């Protein structure tokens, strides 16, 4: 008993009081800022392993970016990754960061279904489906519920069955072998329900884009309610994205 209390005392205060404004330590690669400096656009686009950089105007697609930082190392004056982790959005185009733009990424409130706020504003239960996810996003989803990030303080939790869930969270590029289980899981979730894509692999296929072992047709058939980029997505990106989607920005 006393030992337990001692351990408890030794942990100090671990939880992050304000997950909306917490600072991340070190050199986190969050939302990039691209300057209007002139550089060799072709070389910049070619250095990206995931084909995320387009030219004229220079833009980085965070849905494809693997956040390796190669572009910022090769073209330090042109591309800079900020520590802004609030990079979730519900519009795919908002993930494309153009040169000269330094504005926070927001959700489009007009396209959030009303019941997400009225029904899920205080309690959101999600079912996670790893469809080829490499276990990095899965680690971070679990971390979002540890004592530090403590996502459950907002009533957001992962549940064991799709029948108990208000939506599904997909990680991974969606392999052909997981396409059917994913569809079954989605069908088993009661309406109204949301679909959330976590991580670059889920949003665009990432480095696996174009692999014949994938079957991403599920995404063509359904509307995506939230994109949470990252490789893997940071727990703070995830929590803030979910809060914004349920009207708690």
């Amino acid at each position: 008993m006393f030992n337990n209390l001692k351990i408890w005392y030794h942990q100090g205060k671990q939880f992050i009081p304000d997950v909306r404004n917490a600072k991340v330590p070190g050199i986190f690669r969050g939302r990039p800022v691209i300057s209007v400096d002139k550089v060799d656009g072709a070389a910049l686009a070619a250095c990206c392993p995931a084909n995320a950089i387009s030219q004229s105007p220079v833009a980085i697609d965070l849905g494809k970016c693997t956040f390796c930082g190669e572009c910022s190392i090769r073209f330090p004056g042109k591309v800079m990754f900020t520590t802004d982790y609030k990079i979730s959005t519900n519009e795919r185009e908002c993930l494309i960061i153009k040169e000269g733009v330094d504005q926070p990424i927001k959700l489009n409130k007009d396209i959030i279904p009303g019941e997400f706020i009225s029904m899920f504003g205080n309690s959101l239960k999600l079912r996670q489906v790893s469809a080829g996810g490499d276990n990095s996003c899965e680690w971070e989803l679990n971390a979002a519920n540890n004592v530090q990030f403590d996502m459950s303080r907002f009533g957001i939790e992962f549940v064991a069955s799709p029948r108990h869930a208000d939506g599904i969270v997909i990680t991974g590029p969606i392999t052909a072998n997981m396409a059917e289980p994913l569809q079954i899981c989605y069908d088993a979730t009661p309406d109204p329900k949301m679909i959330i894509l976590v991580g670059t692999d889920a949003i665009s296929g990432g480095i696996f884009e174009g692999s014949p072992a994938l079957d991403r047709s599920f995404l063509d058939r359904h509307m995506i309610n939230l994109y949470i980029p990252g490789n893997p997505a940071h727990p703070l990106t995830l929590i803030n994205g979910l809060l914004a989607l349920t009207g708690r920005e």
Partner: protein
Amino acid sequence: MQFLSIKNNQPVPVSSIPELKYPEFFTLNTGLVAEKPERHCVSYYGYPVQDQIILICCIADDSEQMIHISSCTVKLSDQLPSFTTKLFCFEKFEREIHENFGLKYTDHPWLKPVRYAFDRFDSTRNISNYPFYSIDSEELHEVGVGPIHAGVIEPGHFRFICNGEQILHLEIQLGYQHRGIEKLFLKKKELSQLSTLAENIAGDTVVGHTTAFAQIWESLCRYETSREIDFSRTVALELERIAIHTGDLSALCTDIAYQLGSSVFGRLRTPIVNFMQEWCGNRLSKGLIRPGQVRFPFTPALVDRLNQVLNSFEPDFLEMNKQLFMLPSALSRFERTGVVSFEDALSIGAVGMAARTSGVHRDIRSSHPHSLYPELRHAVNVKRHGDVYSRVQIRKNEVIQSIGYLRKLIADLPEASELSELSVPGENLFTLTLVEGWRGEICHTAITGPKGELIHYKIKDPSFHNWLALALSVRNNEISDFPVCNKSFNLSYAGHDL
């Protein structure tokens, strides 16, 4: 000499690998491994050349610190006796060869699909109609779990045959995570793409797999790594080991409903992964390791920071462990649960931490050391009982050992030096690398063609061997103990399915 002996990371011309007739190939490789605990098969695979299949078998010898390579060319029409009838450790390798190319084994006892690769030989075999083993009995029932699991983890299907609460048999069906990585290695041409692919093989072993890829590439380019490169890889490997072992201890506590342990170990993982972020901008070390590069130098400021992190981590980690190991309710769940015997571990060719808990001395850090491991003179942690408790203890011991290594390493920070330029891979080379990730031995092999392009790339995650160890461990256990057995191994689905 019937085989070629090479060191870890040593490139050799493909033509120098002796080519044997199948009967000699069979006798040689089964003979090398049989009744020799210090030898095991690290990789055995085939690749097609015209209408023939070239088989390459790599047997590591831990006492000689060499890897014995031999090859054999077979035709699709051949009827071959399988290695598996002699030695179970070849079981999965032969299944994989059969699945990929349709090679016929006359006497393989368990010729079932491995991962339903997109380019498998028989595309009528589908992941939804896997041929599960079943027993026709009114006394027994089957329990199916997955592919989607209750927790936030990767997919795989487990089929139990139970007598009441007791598990008689477990069959594990994988392949749901198959992304076609090995083929993408041949398709993608840019080095940055290949490095990114390597770090996505298994997101919990980013450092392990990227180090393996970097070593393969440097070996093909005959590139000498600087001390600074070796230093950063060794430090990153040990940090990854600490982070995952600590996270796994948390998950093990969760599975026995021990809330305090779960919370404390869970929060202790955070300072370690946050340190990775301070170093390289990513909590799981993505982007850190690249062939012939030090992308994020380890600065003296980071040395101070890591010392701080370790100094505050260690007492809390030890205190929590002490309490856990004194708790009768925890010990009763851990002890004698999920036992893998020494004989079983050896016969299935288990590797890494899972093998060491059953008394098998297998650790690449001491047997085929790379990077700065020769200097660390790694003393292998071995346990004898092979139960969940051993796997908990070995995690604790390895974390403490890794902390010691890190302190030793950062006390002698190498000078930043001008790095030599990485050239292009040589022509017609074969090379093999072994890296001890936190799970165990990671083996990558590569073959280049006449222009130095990759013509074959093979990845073997330790989970490839060890999934069978999990299936054996749960026999005769209560089905309610399955989660804690599973977590005690924490095997990779993505690393297996590729």
